[in-house]
């Protein structure tokens, strides 16, 4: 019965699945790119994708657009599960009118984000778009604005992840920037506000797509990309891995797993990672790798501001966000980029109930006119603000140097950090010995017969007096000095103690972090 109706439905359905048609699909494949639906199938668990609004089309008639009507209108939306967890996903379809965004496309995406908000599930966006659909004029731009509005609505409520596997230019680029994490596929994903052609016309600057806004550029220089994937497979792996550390929404705790790694595991080799000579660098990641469950540390934003390390690890099954100075780069000093990187990471973790562990070894803020003129004062304050604002459990472990403003900024006690520990090798002071002595004893050194040996004597005295954690411990500003071998058990115990921490900020519309 009704066989004609059934046939009509089947026919329409099949056309919808073809996107822009076989030719365009082949062109996409020839460029080494998968289609929107293929990407969604790579991401989701087999057979769990339910598409929404596949039969949406645009309703434009200017510029002969009525001759170019395609189902889905350039975006494939829907929901499904990733490793058993429900998520919402939209993927721009480059085969349909170059993946350009139209009013209806934007409507689909905002509808999707709305669903995600109503059900409290993460949203993944796959970018592969030529930008606004010029033929639709302002309506297309309004579509983008709608999406940006919803990105903001969802920010801090549900995790938003963007995978950039193709171009996104002009206005399109701001949506990914507003999401929480951006993964770009090397040599395929590009993002820029103004393309190389216009750049050449206006400024005369010649630059390639890759150099202007490719994955490596954004991962290392601008910090827009948090991850660089070698190919689309790896991109999906990153999304899945990231999701495994995050809760579905901000009312939930991050997923806890059972681990075989003994929470009481000691590591007597940790102290050997720190070289005897304080001027020699070491890799902070070795320490993090040792203390996390199964030596698995998922680093985020690896290529940007390597002088600070941020990422996720598990401690006895609980997800923890780590922030740590890395003496391998710039001696672990804080600067503009690292302050931004860490501050954003802290605020994300705070939004999603992820406790924070901070490992400190920093000689201070980077000096110099470059930093000062570019606003190290403003950017540095972000880190302080972010720490103070975070109400998730916060633990700080001072491993080496912690001087001056950087000592304060890296989760010191009085920023209302919950637990502060220090290794015996910790050195908390206003300034390092050399610099301090030069200032405090300027007159004496000028008068001395043998200023070098006097200086050495004074430095030794200063070091003994101040450059150790015991002074801080005696004031309670460090809760305890711990045996480095016991770092893992001590941190886990602190986390367990802080499990049900409850802290609220005073009600206000929002603070005024120095952006």
């Amino acid at each position, binding site marked *: 019965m009704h066989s004609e109706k059934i046939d009509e439905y089947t026919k329409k359905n099949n056309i919808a699945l073809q996107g822009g048609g076989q030719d365009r699909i082949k062109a996409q494949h020839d460029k080494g790119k998968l289609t929107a639906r293929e990407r969604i199938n790579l991401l989701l668990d087999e057979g769990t994708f339910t598409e929404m609004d596949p039969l949406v089309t645009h309703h434009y008639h200017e510029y002969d657009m009525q001759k170019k009507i395609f189902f889905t209108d350039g975006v494939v939306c829907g929901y499904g599960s990733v490793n058993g967890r429900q998520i919402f996903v939209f993927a721009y379809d480059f085969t349909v009118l170059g993946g350009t965004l139209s009013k209806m496309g934007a409507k689909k995406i905002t509808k999707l984000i709305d669903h995600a908000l109503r059900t409290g599930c993460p949203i993944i966006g796959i970018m592969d778009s030529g930008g606004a659909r010029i033929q639709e004029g302002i309506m297309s731009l309004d579509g983008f604005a709608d999406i940006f509005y919803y990105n903001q609505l969802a920010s801090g409520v549900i995790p938003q992840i963007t995978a950039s596997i193709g171009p996104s230019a002009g206005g399109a680029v701001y949506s990914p920037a507003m999401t929480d994490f951006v993964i770009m596929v090397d040599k395929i994903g590009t993002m820029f506000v103004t393309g190389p052609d216009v750049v050449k016309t206006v400024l005369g600057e010649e630059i390639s797509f890759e150099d202007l806004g490719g994955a490596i550029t954004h991962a290392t220089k601008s910090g827009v990309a948090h991850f660089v994937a070698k*190919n689309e497979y790896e991109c999906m792996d990153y999304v899945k891995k990231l999701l495994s550390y995050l809760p579905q929404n901000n009312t939930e705790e991050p997923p806890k797993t059972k681990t075989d790694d003994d929470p009481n595991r000691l590591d007597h*080799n940790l102290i050997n990672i720190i070289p005897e000579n304080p001027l020699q660098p070491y890799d902070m990641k070795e320490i993090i790798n040792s203390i996390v469950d199964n030596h698995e540390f998922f680093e985020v934003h690896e290529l940007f501001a390597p002088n600070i390390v941020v990422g996720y690890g598990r401690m006895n099954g609980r997800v923890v966000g780590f922030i740590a100075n890395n003496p391998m780069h710039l001696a672990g000093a804080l600067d503009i980029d690292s302050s931004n990187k860490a501050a954003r990471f802290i605020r994300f973790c705070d939004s999603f109930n992820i406790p924070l562990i901070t490992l400190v070894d920093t000689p201070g803020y980077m000096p110099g006119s470059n930093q000062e003129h570019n606003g190290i004062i403003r950017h540095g304050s972000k880190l302080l603000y972010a720490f103070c604002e975070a109400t998730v459990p916060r633990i700080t472990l001072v491993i080496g140097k912690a001087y001056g403003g950087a000592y304060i900024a890296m989760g010191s006690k009085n920023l209302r950090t919950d637990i502060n520990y220090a290794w015996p090798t910790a050195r908390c002071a206003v300034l390092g010995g050399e610099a301090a002595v030069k200032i405090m004893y300027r007159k004496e050194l000028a008068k001395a017969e043998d200023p070098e040996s006097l200086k050495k004597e004074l430095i030794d005295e200063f070091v003994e007096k101040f450059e150790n954690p015991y002074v801080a411990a005696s004031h309670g500003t460090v809760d305890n000095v711990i045996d480095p071998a016991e770092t893992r058990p001590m941190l886990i115990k602190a986390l367990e103690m802080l499990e049900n921490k409850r802290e609220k900020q005073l009600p206000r519309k929002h603070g005024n972090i120095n952006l």
Partner: protein
Amino acid sequence: MDYKILDIEKSFEGKIIENLGNNEYVIKINDNDHKLKILNMTSKGIEFILDQKYHRAKYLEQSTNEMNLVIDNVPITLNIHAHFDEIVYKNTGGGGTGDAQLALKSQIPGKVVSIAVTDGDSVKKGDIVCTLESMKMQVAIKAHKDGVIKSIKVKETATVAKGDVIAEIE
């Protein structure tokens, strides 16, 4: 879904045709139907009967295009979505999953006794990268593919755990 087992160079088409309920299914592998009954399943492993034969499988590391499992004690790696490989690897030039792997991981725990190469050295598959001491024996960790040492992740006297990255080889 299409699958490929690299070691034996065979490709397959496989999917679930019918869910008969009570943990029984009909699946299709290439052109043949098979009856499958799940006896026991967790995210880590499964016991099942396939056409009257009992099997047990352990699910190991998974990634988007690779499934690692141990079936009846035999380790097998399956490439999933293999028909996308040509497209996906077009821009990055990466070959099969084994070659594309950057990290040379240690299969055993031990202490680094000596490192035989430095960053930038060319190595061939099988060249000694470093030597570990484990259980009173010295074991050489060898390069898993031809290439250039991109970065050595360990140093002498460091302790490594099973699975730790020793070096990255491009």
